[in-house]
């Protein structure tokens, strides 16, 4: 099931939370939605699912607007636990069983065991991580075609985080479409094949991870002294980001990486190397291309 978000805008009074967002989520992909706090990720999810009414724009699932019946095939894990404090895990599972035609009791039991969840415990007695885990169980137990997961590893210990990521990868492998957000870029890098980066409600970057990585390189060199005059390279149009941490200089470049590596060497840099971009670089380039910290030299 593919998802098309078309020119989605959501305003709360004079504040624009989501601003003309258009995203294509291919069928069977794992789509990572990244962005700093307040970028509009959760609002985008809410508008996609009709939990909040968009000011304008639409979301199409397999080319059609969302219908109530479609929720038989869509699972959502909210950023903040939406579980009922007074209900037990078993009662939550029972709620899903009675509501969703494709609820798989065996799968639910396996997932409860995977996360070491006691079905008799009431939610009010569960830790934040256990609540997240129970929400994940409820989502995966209904055998959905689309999973929309807002911070699905929030509060989980590293072991359970890994388990959730494996569930996501397995779901995609079985043809399901997964859209998820996370602050942990490493997790997105391990699972997502497509990403979009939101910044202040707008799409700063979107596309297949491989394509985004292929389009740019990092040129890195170590200078003998801290203070380096980088004007020679910082003004180059192919350099989108210059980051200087102590004696280390990292240039994010789109094309001409060999030439720029030679320039750095000529300026006295040692051990100059060209490396592939990782998702963190892509994310930082998207949300803060020019000025990330005091160590970063602004491009002229």
């Amino acid at each position: 099931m593919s998802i098309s978000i078309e020119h989605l805008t959501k305003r709360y009074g004079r504040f624009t939370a989501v601003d003309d967002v258009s995203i294509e989520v291919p069928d069977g992909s794992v789509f990572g939605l990244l962005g700093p706090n307040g970028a509009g990720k959760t609002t985008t999810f809410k508008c996609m699912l009709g939990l909040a009414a968009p000011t304008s724009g639409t979301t199409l699932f397999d080319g059609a607007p969302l219908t109530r019946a479609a929720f038989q095939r869509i699972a959502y894990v909210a950023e903040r636990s939406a579980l009922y404090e007074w209900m037990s895990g078993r009662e939550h599972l029972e709620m899903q069983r009675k509501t969703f035609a494709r609820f798989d009791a065996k799968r639910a039991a396996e997932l409860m065991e995977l996360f070491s969840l006691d079905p008799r415990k009431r939610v009010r007695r569960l830790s934040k991580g256990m609540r997240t885990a129970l929400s994940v169980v409820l989502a995966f137990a209904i055998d959905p075609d689309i999973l929309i997961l807002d911070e699905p590893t929030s509060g989980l210990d590293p072991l359970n985080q890994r388990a959730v990521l494996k569930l996501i990868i397995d779901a995609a492998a079985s043809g399901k479409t997964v859209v998820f957000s996370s602050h942990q870029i490493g997790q997105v890098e391990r699972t997502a094949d497509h990403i979009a980066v939101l910044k202040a409600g707008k799409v700063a970057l979107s596309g297949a991870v491989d394509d985004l990585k292929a389009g740019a390189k990092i040129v890195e060199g170590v200078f003998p002294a801290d203070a380096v005059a980088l004007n020679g390279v910082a003004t180059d149009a192919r350099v989108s980001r210059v980051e200087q941490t102590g004696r280390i200089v990292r240039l994010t470049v789109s094309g001409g990486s060999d030439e720029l590596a030679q320039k750095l060497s000529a300026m006295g840099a040692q051990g100059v190397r060209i490396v592939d971009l990782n998702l963190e670089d892509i994310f930082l380039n998207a949300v803060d291309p020019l000025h990330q910290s005091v160590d970063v030299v602004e491009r002229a």
Partner: protein
Amino acid sequence: MPYFVEYLRATRALRIVGIILGVMLIVGVCFRLYFINGTTPEAYVSSIENSPTAHVTRTQLPDGGTQAVVDDPKRQLHAVIVHHGRSFQMKLSERGAPQGMHNHVSMGNTSTERRTHDGVTTTEMSYEPGSQMQWGILFLISAGMGLLVATILGGPLAKENDGHLELAWTKPISREAYALSAVAVDGLAIVASQLLTIVLILMTTAMWTTPTLHLEDGGGWRIALGLLAPMAWYAFLTTVTASLKRGPGTAIGVAWVLAIIVPALGGQIAEHADAATLLQALHPITATLTYLDPIAYIWFPRNLDLARFAGQGANTAAWLVGLLVAYVALAVAQWHRAEA
């Protein structure tokens, strides 16, 4: 079954009802056991008629009953007892009898009225074997429990709004159907609580006598009122809290206070409206608010001028049905517009 959460809430509320009724039943059983050897009204009358010092004159009455006139000089007692089968009416005068604790006591199938004048105590007692119970009155009594359960379950949409919309609204059912199914489940729970209360009343009565039920004149309207008022109150609480983003507890508490104060105050204002201009100005406001308050139809019916139309029972039921539908519709409309 998208109303499963509300179903769980309703069963929890009914569990509370079960506990309350269970405690009342235990108290009733203890009370009955305490009086297991107590004198029954029939035994008491028999002791008066069969006292060795009593002079008794018996007369056959034209209607088939018998009248016994008892004079007991030793006990300074004079009694006239009219028997019709096992039932009787007695008028008893005693000199120097202890002062009664109650002027009028009506308990189960026995009614007693006692007056003391110039040292002579006159007791009028009537007794009907078996207990005549009226359906309409039973349902009006059970409305108290209905209101309690309506209060516990009131504001179901606000409870969902309090951080659960991401679960409630990602189900394959429309918001309207979700809200209406929750209201329906709660409505059934309210009715169930009332029926359980009636069963308890009958059980408690049966510990003392044989209850017989009959539908009295106007009983049908009383049943309707007893069922509709708690439902309308529930609907009222649901609509006033439907847009809240947090638990409805405080709003429900305030609603209770206002629902009692407004009609009570309205009654006083209506009585004294001619006395002051301010009261004249307030009268239409309190009168209108009283019509919108479902509790007023049970506890302050005199403040509602319903009898001026076709009939009080029919009008009360019609008003309550109107309020019920309007409040539910308003609640669903708010729910439809809400956002997570």
